Structures are given as structure tokens and as C-alpha cells.
């Protein structure tokens, strides 16, 4: 055919198919690298941490000796932080999403707010720390308190909650809104009775994922003055506080080898909390997804 040697063409096809197989394998193993590293990471944490991880570790305040220390101050601080972060960030985030999706006109201001939100999502977390330090800690004179840390983290995860809530609102079918407006319902009534009930599962899922990001944040909390050595759980908005990642960072930075094991045990507690939160998010999503 066309003067080409039939066997040569066949040979080239074979080569091309072989190349395809080789690269297919290569791509597959590259994909596995990420998963393998994840497994190695978890294995490392477990092998180092299991020996130190027990109920006593969870219920003990920090101590200067590796075998006597615990993560209670960090765990309590993290929970206290979430008590501040969750309401602030969810109320402001959902409200912003409602404004943008339901009330805002399509004008330059709206587009600016939208672009601004996606840019905020890309600002490094430590820069939020600097904002919190100047604004909350110094200018509003909150000092190194729980409320300053909580508000800083709230600003940090706000873009994530806004975007997730916007998607949840947009997913509500338009004909439900028409049905409501068609009965003479006002915009607010439609939001409260139709949009929110349908969008809340999506909003909760997005919020939990955002909160789990806040739980893992370390850098901004260092900047706004979360304490590394503290022997109490916060009892008010103006308390000093620590957080699990801060404790872990403190332990990891210690030169003595035994503190690595303590850090690993701390990481186990942190990862368990994150796992529970993510499982809740997935559960809520699966439970309510079928309804609409």
C-alpha cells in the first residue's frame, strides 16, 4: 500500500501500542505515588505515636517531661476556638452568599466582591495572622486571647464557606423559587422557607470542611500569639489559649528524640478529630443528596 512495507507499518503500530502501555503504567504509578506517600505518612505517625497515645495523653495538661505530657490544653483550645469560629464564619459566610446570589444586582460592585473573594482564598494563611496581630491583638487591644485567634481564623476560612454556600444556593432548582414567588411570597419568605431548607445540607458540608481547615491551621495562630505552654483550658473569650497544631509544632521543634513520639501521638488526636469531622460532612452530603 502506497509503496510502504506492510510489515514495517505493522511494526510501527506494535511499537506505538507498546509505548502506550509503558506510559499507561508510568501514569498509573505516578498516581500511586501520592497515595503511597499518604500511607507512609500515616504509618509513620502510627508507629511513632501509638506507644504514647492513650486516654491519659488526651486528658493530661502539658508537662516539661515527655512521658508526663498530654494534649488536653491543645484539644480544649481547639474546641474553644471552634466555638468562636463556627458561628462567626458560618453566619457571615452564608449571609454573604445569600446577598450575592439573591439580592446583589449584576453590577461592578458585585463583580468586584466576587473577584475579591477568590483572591482572598489565595492569600497565604500567615498573612491573615499579620492582619489579626495588627488589627485584633493591637488596635482593638484584644491581646493574645481566644477571641483574637478565633476571629483571625474566621476571616481565613470565610472565602471557603462563601463559595460553598453560593454553590448550594445555586443548586436549588429555579422552579421552586418561581413556585414560591408565584404564591405572593416575598424574597425573604422564599429564602427562609424554600432556599435555606434545600441548601442547608450543602452549606453544612462546606462549612465543616472549612472548619476542619481552620482546625489544622498553625501559622496564623503562632502570629496572633497562641500559647505553647499553658496549663489550662480556656474558660472565656479573653482567656489565653493553645491549640492542637500549636502543641504539635512545639513538640516537633524540640531536639530530644522522645518528643517526636509525643508529637506523633498529638498528630493522631488531631487526625482523629479531622476524620470525624470529614465523616460527618460526607454523611450529611449522602443523606440529603437524594432528596433533591
Amino acid at each position, binding site marked *: 500500500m502506497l509503496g510502504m512495507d506492510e510489515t514495517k507499518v505493522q511494526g510501527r*503500530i506494535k511499537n*506505538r501500542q507498546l509505548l*502506550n502501555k509503558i*506510559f*499507561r503504567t*508510568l*501514569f498509573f504509578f*505516578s*498516581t500511586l*505515588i*501520592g497515595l503511597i506517600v*499518604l500511607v507512609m*505518612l500515616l504509618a*509513620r*505517625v502510627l508507629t*511513632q505515636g501509638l506507644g504514647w497515645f492513650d486516654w491519659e495523653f488526651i486528658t493530661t495538661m502539658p508537662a516539661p517531661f515527655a512521658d508526663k505530657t498530654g494534649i488536653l490544653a491543645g484539644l480544649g483550645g481547639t474546641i474553644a476556638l471552634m466555638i468562636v469560629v463556627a458561628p462567626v464564619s458560618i453566619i*457571615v459566610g452564608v*449571609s*454573604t452568599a*445569600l446577598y*450575592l446570589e439573591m*439580592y446583589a444586582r449584576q453590577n461592578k460592585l458585585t463583580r468586584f*466582591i466576587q*473577584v*475579591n*473573594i477568590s*483572591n*482572598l482564598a*489565595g*492569600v*497565604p*494563611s*500567615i*498573612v491573615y*495572622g*499579620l*492582619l489579626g496581630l*495588627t488589627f485584633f491583638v*493591637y488596635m482593638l487591644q484584644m491581646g493574645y486571647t481566644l477571641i483574637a485567634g478565633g476571629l483571625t481564623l474566621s*476571616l481565613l476560612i*470565610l*472565602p471557603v464557606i462563601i463559595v460553598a454556600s453560593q454553590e448550594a444556593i445555586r443548586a436549588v432548582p429555579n422552579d421552586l423559587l418561581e413556585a414560591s414567588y408565584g404564591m405572593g411570597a*416575598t424574597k*425573604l*419568605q422564599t429564602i427562609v422557607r424554600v432556599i435555606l431548607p434545600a441548601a442547608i445540607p450543602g452549606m453544612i458540608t462546606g462549612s465543616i470542611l472549612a472548619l*476542619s481547615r481552620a482546625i*489544622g491551621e*498553625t*501559622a496564623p495562630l*503562632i*502570629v496572633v500569639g497562641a500559647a505553647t505552654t499553658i496549663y489550662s483550658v480556656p474558660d472565656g473569650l479573653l482567656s489565653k489559649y493553645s491549640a492542637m497544631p500549636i502543641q*504539635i*509544632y512545639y513538640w*516537633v521543634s524540640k531536639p530530644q528524640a522522645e518528643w*517526636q513520639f509525643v508529637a*506523633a501521638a498529638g*498528630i493522631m488526636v*488531631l*487526625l482523629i478529630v*479531622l476524620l470525624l469531622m470529614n465523616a460527618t460532612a460526607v454523611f450529611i452530603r449522602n443523606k440529603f443528596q437524594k432528596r433533591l
Partner: protein
Amino acid sequence: MMGNIKEDKQKIDVQQMINEKKSTQNNLKIIEKIVPVFLFLCAALSILTTVGILFTLLRESITFFGEQGFFSFITGTKWNPWAGDFGVLPLITGTLQITVISILVALPIGLASAIFLSEYASDKVRRTIKPTLEVLAGVPTVVYGYFAVSFVTPILRSIFPEIGIFNALSAGLVVGIMIVPMIASLSEDAMNSVPTSLREGALALGSTRLEVALKVVVPAAFSGIVAATVLAISRAIGETMIVTIAAGASPNLTFDPLVSIQTLTAFIVQGIKGDTTFGSMIYYSVYAVGMTLFVFTLAMNLLSQYIARKFREEY
């Protein structure tokens, strides 16, 4: 025909009831007016956040530049704030090193994963692997920092005996792993949006899957892949805990990945963490470094958005 006797006895006029209720609905009208104002204020908070970031960074760094000079800051080759040396270049090269190493790790792995997921994997495999890969993005960075010093660095030491306890290589590798899901996920999205008809056209001409992937899909999704990479670069520049824990705190003007360095972010942690007093020169220098960091990441984010927008117009 449809009504029954019981009903006829107690007839109700709904429209009349609605009219009677109107006065009580008046409270609702006030709420109806207040709510959008409240919602707008919440939306305005996101703008205030940006203004706040710019204001704090600018105010403190302007004080700093007033004392130390802007030019000597950006061209100085020695960073030792406690001795009064404020040349930011070592921090920038440190950041650059981490970024380059991490992209060298993440780009091939991320791109290969994206090609596998989008061009080779079955739907079922994709739906298992993709979320698992995204778990990597959810691991707190302090955990990665621990992984770098307690696992990666010891392995590197057995390969390069001269490597420092803190070094750029270990931190860079782990930052790379952290940003793999970002590149993989966003690139896969870009590849998925390449029309199937293009693929079918090439397959019908007798191309193998590999040829379709490399000669059709990747070129068509190229700007999406670039946008993803640029966004990943921005993440690597801004990453703090991994480099603080694993790369050390020695601002060296070097490109040797085996020695300890310091990045922009790591200095901010170091500068703020100590007994830095409000209003000291170190305090201000932290903000000057923060400003530098912010400018770099913002430029990367805007570049990524610009590329992604151009990409969308093509289809």
C-alpha cells in the same frame, strides 16, 4: 360536586383572612427591609478584610522602609535582623528554592495523575482515587512538617551524608507532595472540559490513547494546566509550617538544597514568635517581609486567573 356538607357550614374566605392578617404582617415588612442591609454588610466584610490586609501590611512596612530604605531592602544580600542587616534577597532565594523543588516534584506527578485519571482510568477508579488524593490536600501542614523532619530528612541523610538536619530539599519535597492534589485536580478538570469529539476524532485516525493524551488533550487543556501550576506555585510560596519545621532558620544566599535556609514565611514566624516587641525594627521588618510575600502570591493568583479566563474564551 366537590365540596361536602360539613364544609358548607363553616365557609372560610381565605383572601379575607389574608387581608385581616396584613397588619400583623407589617413587622415582616420591616424585617424584609433590614435583612438585605445586614447581608450586604456581611458581604462588605470580605472587602474590608482585603482593605485591612493592605492597610496593615502597608502601614507597618512604610514605617520600616522609612527607617531602612526600600532599595537596600530589596537588593541587600544579608538578612540578619538582630544585627541590623535587612537585605531580603536570602529569604527570596530560600523561598525560590523551596518553590522550584516542590514544582519539580509536583508537576510531573500531578500531571501524570491527571492524565491517568482523565484519559485512562475508568469512572469507578477515578471516583475512588480522586477523593483519596484530595485527602493529601486536607492534611494539616504541621503534620507534613513532622513527616519531613522525622521521616524524609533521615532518608535523605542516608543518601547524602553531608546534608544538614534542616535543609531545603526535604522541605521542598514535602511541599511538593502537598501541592500534588491541587495540580492533579485542577489539571484533570481542564482535561475533562476538552470536548470528547476531539478525542474521538484522533482515536478514529488510529491514534493510541497516549497519542491522544499528549498530542490532543494536553495541548487543548494547556492553559488550564498552566493556571493550575501557577496557583500551586502561589501555594508553595505561601506555605509556612513545613519550611519552618524542616528547612531551618538560616537565611543563606545559596542554591544548595542540602543546607539550611530560611523562607519569607519562616522568617515571619521566627520574627513574631520571639519576644519581639510592638514597634521594634524587627516587628516592622516582619511586615515588610509579609508585604513581599503578599505581592508575590497576589501576582501569582492574578496571573492564574488571567490564564484561566483566557482559556475559557477559547471554547
